[in-house]
């Protein structure tokens, strides 16, 4: 299994530590070596809205550092994966690349266009594969009804993601959930965005989008929603708590990051290895249903 440069992004290492913890544990167990990179900075996704060039420069800086170490990048955040993948596409244009490299020179860097990027779920899906994952399962999760949420940037823009999955009818996360032994549950509005980007500008929109997703998933009596991006995680769990406090009580839908679900199935310690006690919405009922009592 090849090594990857671990791209933590901005939100995961400061606000969703359990995602990092569970991802590191799952990768270690599956033989994916993650290399921490001191020089990585923000992927530039948000800054591109103010200056496309600044966004591209930040992305190129990260890619150049990974390239220097001869590594491809593994991200935890779907938007980081999208931004870096889109930047790789943009930097294939010689003129653009020359312009960016001219500026990267101030740091003694050059991006040649050799580094690739993959989101962790994609590494699990493509590099490890469903069959290999199934071999590692120790705990039976077949009683769990799990609703998958892909996240917009995991699937789009399609042009930068090289045939990962069909954005209109995605299957990869369903298969990963099945590989962990749980039952993927269909629900209305699979494509609905978490609204993470809207939160700083419009609470109204953020609450609307989160509530709609929670309503649709809870209507199908799912035990949890599984996400693969820390922003989706923060929206569905943080705003779920706020909805209970400010509007309607009675929302209870545990939100798990995919490596947490897979980690449970692989026999990881819910607290020390998968950080489930950090999750805002308690997963005690979920663990009891799966017969895992170590955390309670």
């Amino acid at each position, binding site marked *: 299994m090849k090594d990857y440069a671990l791209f933590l992004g901005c939100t995961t*290492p400061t606000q969703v530590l359990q995602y990092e913890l569970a991802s590191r544990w799952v990768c270690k167990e599956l033989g994916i070596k993650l290399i921490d990179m001191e020089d990585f900075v*923000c992927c530039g996704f948000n800054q591109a*809205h103010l200056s496309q060039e600044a966004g591209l420069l930040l992305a190129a800086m990260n890619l150049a550092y990974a390239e220097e170490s001869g590594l491809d990048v593994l991200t935890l955040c779907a*938007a980081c994966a999208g931004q870096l993948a889109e930047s790789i596409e943009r930097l294939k244009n010689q003129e653009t690349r020359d312009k960016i490299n001219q500026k990267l020179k*101030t*740091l003694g860097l050059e991006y040649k266009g050799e580094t690739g990027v993959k989101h962790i779920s994609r590494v699990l899906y493509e590099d490890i594969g469903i069959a290999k994952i199934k071999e590692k399962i120790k705990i039976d999760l077949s009683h769990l009804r799990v609703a998958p949420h892909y996240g917009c940037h995991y699937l789009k*823009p399609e042009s930068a993601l090289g045939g990962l999955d069909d954005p209109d009818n995605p299957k990869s996360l369903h298969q990963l959930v099945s590989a962990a032994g749980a039952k993927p549950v269909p629900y209305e509005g699979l494509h609905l965005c978490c609204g993470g*980007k809207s939160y700083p500008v419009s609470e109204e929109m953020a609450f609307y989008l989160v509530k709609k997703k929670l309503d649709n998933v809870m209507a199908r009596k799912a035990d949890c929603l599984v996400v693969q991006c820390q922003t989706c995680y923060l929206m569905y769990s943080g705003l779920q708590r706020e909805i209970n406090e400010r509007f309607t009580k009675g929302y209870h839908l545990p939100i798990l990051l995919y490596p947490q679900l897979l980690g449970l199935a692989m026999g990881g310690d819910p607290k020390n290895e998968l950080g489930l006690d950090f999750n805002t919405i308690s997963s005690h009922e979920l663990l009891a249903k799966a017969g895992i009592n170590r955390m309670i």
Partner: protein
Amino acid sequence: MKYKRTNRAPIPLSELDPGFKSEVIRHEEARGLNVCFSCGTCTAGCPVHVIFPEYSPLKLAKMVQLGMRKDVLGNPFIWYCVTCHNCEHRCPQNVKFFNILTVLKNMAAREGYSPASWVEQTQQIMQTGMIFPKRGKWEQRREALTLPEIKGDGTKAKRLVKLTGIDKIKARIES
């Protein structure tokens, strides 16, 4: 929902900027505007439009074509996009509206219309290299979980992004 007719004042033609469209499509990423045939598939798939009908990718594209410079760049709704990419994914003409909007936001930012949160993020990146503050509770949490320390040094990122002038962008004054 009952249909409500809105009595909108006509667009004052004398205030249109006929050069606006060419100013926008000078950016290669916004060239798609030329092949848009106004079918509205982008707006039909937009989650923001469901909540704020005032926001519509199709309408914005039309406004650019008409030269409604100030109404586009000063429109707070251009910052409401959730970046879901539905508009461009579903477009039958393969117009990348997401990229057009980025061009518009870049222009708006240079003219002082950016929301404060975006500008604050730039400041943070120049300090820590990331969108988070230099110090926080997370440091102790990381230590307790024996996760590796994060240096959070923005020196290099600052040197780099300053070359683009992004540090000069001022936030919109909220009225």
